[in-house]
């Protein structure tokens, strides 16, 4: 198992527990992470890389693998193209150069490269430590390069495994809650797909892709976007550079927020609709392994309606009546329009769930992808060079701030759990003992942290989990809204914010 940019035991605990179990049973564990996370302590090899140097690390490993002839020649020939370009690109990522950029000792690079390449079955895991960079897309493609180079794909116990953050982020994507695709990634720009949905829904549909989240807030700034409906998201707390988000929301003429709580975002709304929680609705979630599983209503919806009912009611008022009698009817309509879900029904997932693609009612589901070919046919190696983070520490802002999730919280719902909040109610920013001493601060002290975009105060915990020069914070707490600090730089393709790296300064705050 090669983990890069995933603190699995905290962000996906049960998956993390399974990894730890596998490691203790003898599976080799490699962890690349700037922080000494729990699994780093469990790892056979922990590569403490400098934040934002994933590409040099991966290119460096590939450099060694190719130089030593450990690449999987037959897989490369049969299943991939553009290998020569990759070989050329990684040529300059010599162990010495990579070691200087990443901080990983040269010997470790050799050991890990050989171990990964020569293991029969090796799995790569990553999460937002890879994607939340300006080069997030390139990071992901580099990870894929490494897997293709060694043929660790398309068999059980291999593959590139992004562990999805939210409970149903996979499903929300599958359902076409994206500006460029309908359900099952059928493109809105493809006339045949569009015709299919126009026929099913009985209306003409727009043919050009819509706006992604950061573009929406940009458009709001410029007065082009006038109204928004936000269901179950709290961008003011969770999106990067929150002051920019707030300003965008303020400019809207009309904002509807549907939420469990009066969130920071809901306060900007003209109308707030109460939402029902997972316990108050029937439906399905699709997990990180594409497994579609049932959600079942256990109690009456607190707001009087499940969300599917209130959304339907809104459609009604706006002149488009939808007459679903149950969540199951909605699922069935969706499945009938979505080839990858076509074989899935509530009856079939009553007990265990099914992994898509599941094209027909007798299809057993698909536990792993790319068995005999990739989506585009052959796997395309990409030549990718190092891009440093958009904002690195300098004289004025000497610390590197990185952010993430902690075990006890899940984004913004858990602070409303009385039990959890009674114990973990405050941010404790992680500061290395070396820096703490220089600043004259101790665990429990309050500090002011400021970036070019905003500032906040937080308590600190002094720990060598973080290296000197780095501060790490979660983003769960209203009182220390970390995203007031984070960078507004985004990946050019996905528009994902660079939450993992920005420059800040820090000083002690007197008193309690």
């Amino acid at each position: 198992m090669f983990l890069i940019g995933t603190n699995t035991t905290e962000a996906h605990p049960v998956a993390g527990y399974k990894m730890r179990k596998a490691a203790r049973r003898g599976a080799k564990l490699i962890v690349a992470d700037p922080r000494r996370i729990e699994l780093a302590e469990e790892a056979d090899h922990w590569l403490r890389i400098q934040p934002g140097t994933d590409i040099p690390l991966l290119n460096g490993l590939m450099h060694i693998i190719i130089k030593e002839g450990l690449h999987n020649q037959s897989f490369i020939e049969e299943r991939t193209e553009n290998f020569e370009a990759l070989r050329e690109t990684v040529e300059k990522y010599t162990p010495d150069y990579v070691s200087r950029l990443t901080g990983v000792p040269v010997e470790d690079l050799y050991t890990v490269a050989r171990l990964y390449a020569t293991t029969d079955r090796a799995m790569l895991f990553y999460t937002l430590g890879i994607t939340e960079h300006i080069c997030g897309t390139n990071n992901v493609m580099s990870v894929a390069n490494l897997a293709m180079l060694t043929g660790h794909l398309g068999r059980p116990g291999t593959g590139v495994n992004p562990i999805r953050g939210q409970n149903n982020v996979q499903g929300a994507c599958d359902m076409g809650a994206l500006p460029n695709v309908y359900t099952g990634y059928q493109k809105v720009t493809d006339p045949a797909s569009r015709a299919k949905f126009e026929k099913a829904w009985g209306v003409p549909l727009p043919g050009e892709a819509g706006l992604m989240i950061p573009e929406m807030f940009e458009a709001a700034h410029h007065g082009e976007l006038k109204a928004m409906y936000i269901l179950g998201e709290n961008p003011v707390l969770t999106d990067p550079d929150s002051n920019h988000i707030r300003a965008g929301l303020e400019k809207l003429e009309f904002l509807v927020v549907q939420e469990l709580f009066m969130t920071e975002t809901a306060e900007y709304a003209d109308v707030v609709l109460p939402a029902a929680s997972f316990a108050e609705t029937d439906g399905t979630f699709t997990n990180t392994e594409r497994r579609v599983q049932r959600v079942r209503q256990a109690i009456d919806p607190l707001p009087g309606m499940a969300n599917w009912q209130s959304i339907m009611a809104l459609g009604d008022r706006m002149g488009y009546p939808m007459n679903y009698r149950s969540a199951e009817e909605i699922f069935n309509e969706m499945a009938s329009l979505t080839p990858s879900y076509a074989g899935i029904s509530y009856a079939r997932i009553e007990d265990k769930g099914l992994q898509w693609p599941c094209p027909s009612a007798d299809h057993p589901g698909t536990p792993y992808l790319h068995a005999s070919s990739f989506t585009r046919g052959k796997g395309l190696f990409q030549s990718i060079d190092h891009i440093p983070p958009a904002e690195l520490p300098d004289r004025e802002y000497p610390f590197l701030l990185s952010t993430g999730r902690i075990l006890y919280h899940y984004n913004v719902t858990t602070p409303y759990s009385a039990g959890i909040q009674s114990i973990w109610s405050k941010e404790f920013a992680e500061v290395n003992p070396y820096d703490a001493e220089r600043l004259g601060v101790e665990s429990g002290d309050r500090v002011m942290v400021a970036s070019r975009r905003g500032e906040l105060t937080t308590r600190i915990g002094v720990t060598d989990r973080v290296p000197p020069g780095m501060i790490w914070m979660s983003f769960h707490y209203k009182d220390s809204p970390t995203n007031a600090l984070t960078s507004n730089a985004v990946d050019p393709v996905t528009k994902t914010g660079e939450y993992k790296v920005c420059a800040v300064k820090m000083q002690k705050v007197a008193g309690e």
Partner: protein
Amino acid sequence: MDLIRIKIDGRDVEVPAGTTVLEAAEQAGIHIPRLCHDPELSRFGACRLCVVEIEGMRNLPASCVTAVASGMVVWTESPPVTEARKTILELLMANHPQDCLTCEKMGDCRLADYCYRYGVKEIPYKGKTHAYGVEEDNPFIVRDADKCILCGKCVRACAEITGKDNLDFAYRGFDTKVATFGDSPLLESDCVFCGSCVAVCPTGALMEKQMQGRARRYELKRVKTTCPFCGTGCNFELCVKEGKIMGVTTKSGGAVNGRSLCIKGRFGWDFVYSEKRLDTPYIKKNGKMEPATWDEALNVIAGRLGEIKQKYGPGAFAALSSARCTNEENYLVQKLVRVVMGTNNVDHCART
């Protein structure tokens, strides 16, 4: 693989070599009582309740740690076996509180089940008993060491399911107890409050605090569902009494997590009952949020969105759907945006 043929209670059973007698009996549909054995944990052989008679063997071996051998003849409920089990239970009960009437575990207690099965009424042994007291200073797990029978399942669950190694046996002999490092309370230990120890405990020694005093186990309606935190997609049961959630429990089996959960899944559900939950729509009037009916709120939304679409065109509207919501809700949101508002401006936090 080599198949081995044995006889259990007169039935012929064929199982692979290496199978234990207990597992072989299970395959033949015979349930052998056990307290410390758990198919998902390492073999322990501590409680001795699973003893059986095997012809030709001098003692009664523990079936959970005895591998099958060709030609074995096993009796699982013969008089020597039931007598031994009764004695084992009497010895356990000699040092176990008998407050079953008010014990949280009543109705779901393996010790009580087996005492019932083997007719343990009087306890012939009198001796010292423990009086450790109850640890309940954390919001999640109540530990009552007096009710612990030292089966070690919590120790193994912590080490083998969660991998935290936070629990182990401490002290010796009669004083043996399950403890954290330094015998400190859970809150001061490395405990991550995943509650796997609670899920495997056969007695009332480890209980969910949230359920204390609120429901008998047999009153609970259990609704299987999928966890709303993180993308792992663990399954659990919401335990409901009179229309209210009392707690979360887990069961063996299942494709994703079995009985394993983290603190959020097992104990974080109470956000559902937060007093800050919104239960009615609000409309902002003169800068202040005023409660409104669904009718009023939906009419305002439909009216305003209609006007804005009319005035500025479909591109002036955008929606954020939610990675927390169900597939069905997400499907409806994108459909509403595309069909009613006529734009593809719909997204959610997939990339953030």
